[in-house]
């Protein structure tokens, strides 16, 4: 509703993202100078890497971590925007509707039981086994919450929250069980499953998340107009030529794809998908094309800033990133919940 055109916003967000990436590669347990960063990048691009510890640290740890963080932020935020459009409710996000915890359960299963799984299909899947299991878990949990909360075709916020709590508790219980019986120290880490961590970043998993993020966002953009039409209601969207049932299935799958792949690598990071679309709506508009592109940029920026804080506050150790996103996100959630409660008194909403 504000007069500033979209491309100015995209430009500013893009520049901020670049800035946050550069600053983020610099700070941490070891601080790296900008001149060194430039030098290392030039080395890497020309294929003549140096051997200093600082350069190894930068190329093998810091850089993939920063990129993974940005990609995860983008994925989670776009998924949040998709789910809010689908449920036609601003309090929905992948953590609430079970996608994250379901994905974590799927990932935990492979993490812990992976060594006991055997057969040709396990070998064939290779690095994709983990994200696939996360996808299956996240998809199942999301589908369950959606079905439970949309009895008689009408989504009720209270039922949605309760269904979310139940399914999340179930998934978290399963994840707790797997981490309890695990021998691998990383799988035992409660921090990874509940609060997320980016410390496991390497080029392989960053590559996998890059793929899901780019493909997922690209596909999401195809549906931005249909999701806009859906804001008017299902019948109205149908009259505008939208195949609503097909759209709903595809959006649920797309959300699961984006969230599950990221979650299988970084664990559960909550509230990003809630705050980012909300800020964008306040900034400019509820147009889903804007929300999707904007969420990709702003989500990457905000999660990067959160990760920077996580590394700086208690350096050389690191703070769980999920704590930071929860502190920032939970108040926003409560605010939206109170407002939704008031709207609910005037009648429910449809989905």
């Amino acid at each position, binding site marked *: 509703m504000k007069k500033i055109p979209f491309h100015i916003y995209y430009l500013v967000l893009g520049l901020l993202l670049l800035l946050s990436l550069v600053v983020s590669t610099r700070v941490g347990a070891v601080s790296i100078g900008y001149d060194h960063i430039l030098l290392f990048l030039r080395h890497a691009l020309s294929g003549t890497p140096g051997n200093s510890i600082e350069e190894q640290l930068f190329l093998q740890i810091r850089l993939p971590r920063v990129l993974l963080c940005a990609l995860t932020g983008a994925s989670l935020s776009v998924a949040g925007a998709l789910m809010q459009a689908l449920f036609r409710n601003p309090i929905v996000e992948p953590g609430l509707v079970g996608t994250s915890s379901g994905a974590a359960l799927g990932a935990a299963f492979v993490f812990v039981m992976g060594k006991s799984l055997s057969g040709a299909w396990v070998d064939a899947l290779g690095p994709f086994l983990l994200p696939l299991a996360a996808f299956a878990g996240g998809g199942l949990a999301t589908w369950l919450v959606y079905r439970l909360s949309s009895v008689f075709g009408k989504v009720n916020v209270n039922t949605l929250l309760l269904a979310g709590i139940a399914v999340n508790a179930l998934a978290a219980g399963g994840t707790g069980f797997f981490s309890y019986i695990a021998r691998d120290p990383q799988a035992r880490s409660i921090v990874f499953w509940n609060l997320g961590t980016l410390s496991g970043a390497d080029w392989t998993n960053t590559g996998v998340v890059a793929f899901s993020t780019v493909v997922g966002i690209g596909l999401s953009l195809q549906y931005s107009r249909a999701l806009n039409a859906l804001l008017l209601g299902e019948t109205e969207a149908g009259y505008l030529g939208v195949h609503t049932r097909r759209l709903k299935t595809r959006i649920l799958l797309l959300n699961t794809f984006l969230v599950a792949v990221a979650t299988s690598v970084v664990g559960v990071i909550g509230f990003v998908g809630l705050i980012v679309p909300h800020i964008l709506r306040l900034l400019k*508009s509820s147009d889903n094309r804007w929300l999707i592109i904007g969420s990709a940029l702003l989500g990457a920026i905000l999660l990067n800033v959160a990760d920077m804080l996580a590394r700086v506050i208690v350096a050389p150790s690191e703070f769980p990133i999920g704590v930071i996103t929860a502190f920032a996100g939970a108040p926003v959630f409560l605010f939206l919940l109170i407002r939704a409660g008031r709207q609910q008194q005037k009648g429910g909403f449809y989905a």
Partner: protein
Amino acid sequence: MLSIENLVCRIGDRKIVDDISISFAPGRLHVIVGPNGSGKSTFLKAFSGEWTPSAGHVTYDGVGLNHFDRIDLARRRAVMTQLPELHFPLSVDEIVMMGRYPHFSLRPSVRDRTICRKVKGLLSIDGLGDRDYLTLSGGERQRVQFARALAQVWETPPKGGRYLFLDEPVSSLDIHYQHQLLRLARSLVKENIVLIAVLHDLNLALQYAGRMVFMKHGRVVAEGAREIVTAKLVHEVFDVEARLLDDPEGGRPVIVFA
């Protein structure tokens, strides 16, 4: 020309629409009236393609409804429903542009923008373009929704005609806006468009309809110009005692309920 043959809609064992055959030609405003639960809305949903009928045929200019894909249908047929509820802020411009969604694939063309500007002018909402829909009054919202439906079928498709259906369009409006909207709807009659409205208020229907269709228990019980309306028919359909008085200045009857 919209032709409906032996249309039946069932929910469970109940026939909501019970074997209706009727056709609607361009050139007049067809108004469907009937008591609550008479199947008006389901009937409208069925012939507009939103509800798959249990039996029967619906053809648009001789082409069966099931031969159109969704986009193709959306380019020739628009439906204005009762005020949809919105939960997110959207500007008036964004909502009116939704009417053009079936017509462009990525970005609206100059033509799409021109059409939106024209319909906004026609409904005198051009000043509201940047306003948040949620802050509008009921009357303004209604006009925005009407603009969106009108933008959707602004152009005549290469083959066949245009269809605009209004499902209880004035139910939440005060008298001033009710008349404003129906006057505008009636003015479209000249534009070679099949125009059908479902209305609750019999007097409004009498004033604006070119043809009236009375429904009860899923059937069409009477149809024709407003001369068919008698106290007996009103009693038969709505189960209320009514008298028809002649308005000496309006030149048409007024219904008074006992």
